[in-house]
């Protein structure tokens, strides 16, 4: 394999991988504060991309993206307030079914609003044919946008959780909800906020990736599965590990095509990886077995 081809596969893998990682971080934020796996996480990515495309008809691109992120945050907050906030000690099965139902409804609404046409945002800089040469391979500038924006999200999030009072309060809720409540933290609001935060980063990911992969109403399920694979691969709840796991999965996928594996089986590969990890190391590649056994799955 020539260097050019090799670096192209690497970049393709990294691009997809970092998107998976962002979806996985969305899972982790909600999982940490509530113990819920939000099966509608992929729908946030779809909503972000689709609403940005619609807003872009009337607004310049940056404003359209900001509007789309705010809109998706609103949806995230509404979901939590209307469907989850007031449940008393819901069982895991009940929450799973509720979020699955929500993802179906969001998808069906999107189908009736936007139809089943495939759309895309315009390239942020340049156009389809413009390219930058890195390591001898022509790379679309949009790939660099994806990498830059997603890296920013990861760095800002870790700064947010480390240094801001709000981030600290969310972490307190994650580690011990009762103790946090006793310290005067409104745990319910933290849960709402975690839904808004993960909706927001999902929407940003949906916007930056839209020019490359296009957006359509049913893109959410596939992304949610990949994102969950990555979250489990890294160890549920651990966001930095999710980035490493995401890049790993993206590169494995890219090279599975490179060695001639049929494209149709690409999803099957990542799901098989998920199954194997679940069976062999359910606490993830980087997770701690003892810590995981304390959590209720």
């Amino acid at each position, binding site marked *: 394999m020539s260097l050019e081809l090799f670096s192209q596969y690497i970049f393709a893998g990294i691009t997809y991988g970092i998107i998976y990682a962002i979806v996985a971080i969305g899972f982790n934020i909600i999982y940490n504060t509530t113990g819920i796996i939000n099966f509608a996480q992929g729908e946030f990515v779809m909503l972000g991309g689709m609403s940005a495309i619609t807003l872009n008809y009337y607004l310049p691109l940056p404003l359209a993206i900001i509007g789309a992120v705010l809109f998706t945050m609103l949806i995230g907050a509404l979901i939590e307030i209307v469907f989850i906030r007031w449940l008393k000690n819901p069982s895991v099965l009940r929450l799973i*079914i*509720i979020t*699955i139902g*929500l993802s179906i409804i969001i998808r*069906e609404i999107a189908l009736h609003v936007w139809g089943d046409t495939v759309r895309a945002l315009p390239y942020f800089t340049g156009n389809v044919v413009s390219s930058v040469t890195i390591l001898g391979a022509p790379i679309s500038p949009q790939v660099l946008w994806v990498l830059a924006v997603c890296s920013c999200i990861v760095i800002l999030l870790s700064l947010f959780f480390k240094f801001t009072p709000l981030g600290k309060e969310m972490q307190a809720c994650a580690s011990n909800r009762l103790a946090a409540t006793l310290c005067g933290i409104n745990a319910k609001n933290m849960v709402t906020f975690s839904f808004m935060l993960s909706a927001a980063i999902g929407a940003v990911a949906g916007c930056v990736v839209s020019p490359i992969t296009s957006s359509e109403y049913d893109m959410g399920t596939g992304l949610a599965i990949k994102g969950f694979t990555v979250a489990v691969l890294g160890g549920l709840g651990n966001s930095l590990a999710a980035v490493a796991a995401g890049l790993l999965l993206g590169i494995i996928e890219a090279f599975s095509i490179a060695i001639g594996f049929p494209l149709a*089986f690409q999803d099957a590969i990542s*799901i*098989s990886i998920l199954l194997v990890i679940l069976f062999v190391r359910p606490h993830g590649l980087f997770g701690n077995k003892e810590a995981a056994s304390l959590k209720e799955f």
Partner: protein
Amino acid sequence: MGAKKITGIALLVVFVVAVQIATQLTGTSYYLTQLTMTMYSCLLIIGLCLVMGYAGQVSLGHAGFFAIGGYTSASLTTTNLLPALEGGSSWVSMLNSMGLLTAGSSMFGEPLLTVHPWLACLLAITITALIAFLVGIPVLKLKGHYLAMATLGFGIIIFRIVLAMEFFGEADGISDVPGFTLLPGLTVNGDIDNRVVNYYIAAAVLVTGFVLLLNLIDSRVGRALRAIHGAEDAADSMGINTARYKLYTFVISAVFAAVAGVLLTHYTGGISPSDAGVMKSVRYVAIVAIGGMASLWGALTMGGILNFLSLRGFFGSYDDAVFGTILIIIMLFAPEGVLRLTLWSKFKRQKKEKGS
């Protein structure tokens, strides 16, 4: 069998016959086609109810088992083995001499030699049971979200495989599946003349399956399952082999799904990848949830009503949205199922207190 159970089943049989007579009298026997398809779906749903309601395990991959059954039978009964026989394949000639192959002709009058539907059906069930067994061993060790995702993943893999392989007809699926002659005179196929017979075949299969499950949950196994559902650790410490019981129920319900898949495929004459889709699995879970999880009667009733309405196109293009909405409303307000609304039981209790 308790008297209550016998009465219930007798009423069910009377209802099935009454529906058929009613359609005959009102000249609406075209309803029987959808009713037959509904009953096969119900067979899968009561099987899933055993896993979800009684063993307490969620499965988002049951459309996968349905598809394994249906696709195995469909591909075996449509693949022409005549070239292989003429090519001197010892396998094919052995099967042929054992009378396990049937001759037929294609739409264009070419001679066909295919696997006999009975053999195909048995193979389909065996393969499904084997896959369920092998998948079940590791999967059922998982709980909650992990179990849901793992079964969902299994369903997607099956969907991808049937969508990507030429042997399974890729996106078109398999069509022109021949009828399945159970006994001389009893053929599962979509002929209009055969509609009433097929209605009763489906009813017989469904009622048999239902009675089997009712007896199973009233047996030692059923009590063990309920103990597992209530408190798995406690059940374990009482000497119940929880892992084995969970695996058995998983395999049994997969077999129910496979039988439904085989018979429905022969009835409609074809199967397509959408039958293996994730939405189908979600829909089955939804119906079991609406029926009240641990209620075979509830699953049967709701499965019958919702599947029939959906097949009649009652929900139009909002079909999936309707199922999603019902799912959420039930889980929010009546997690015990519609037939056991907490409001009702409260009302009853108040009445009793007043009366005493």
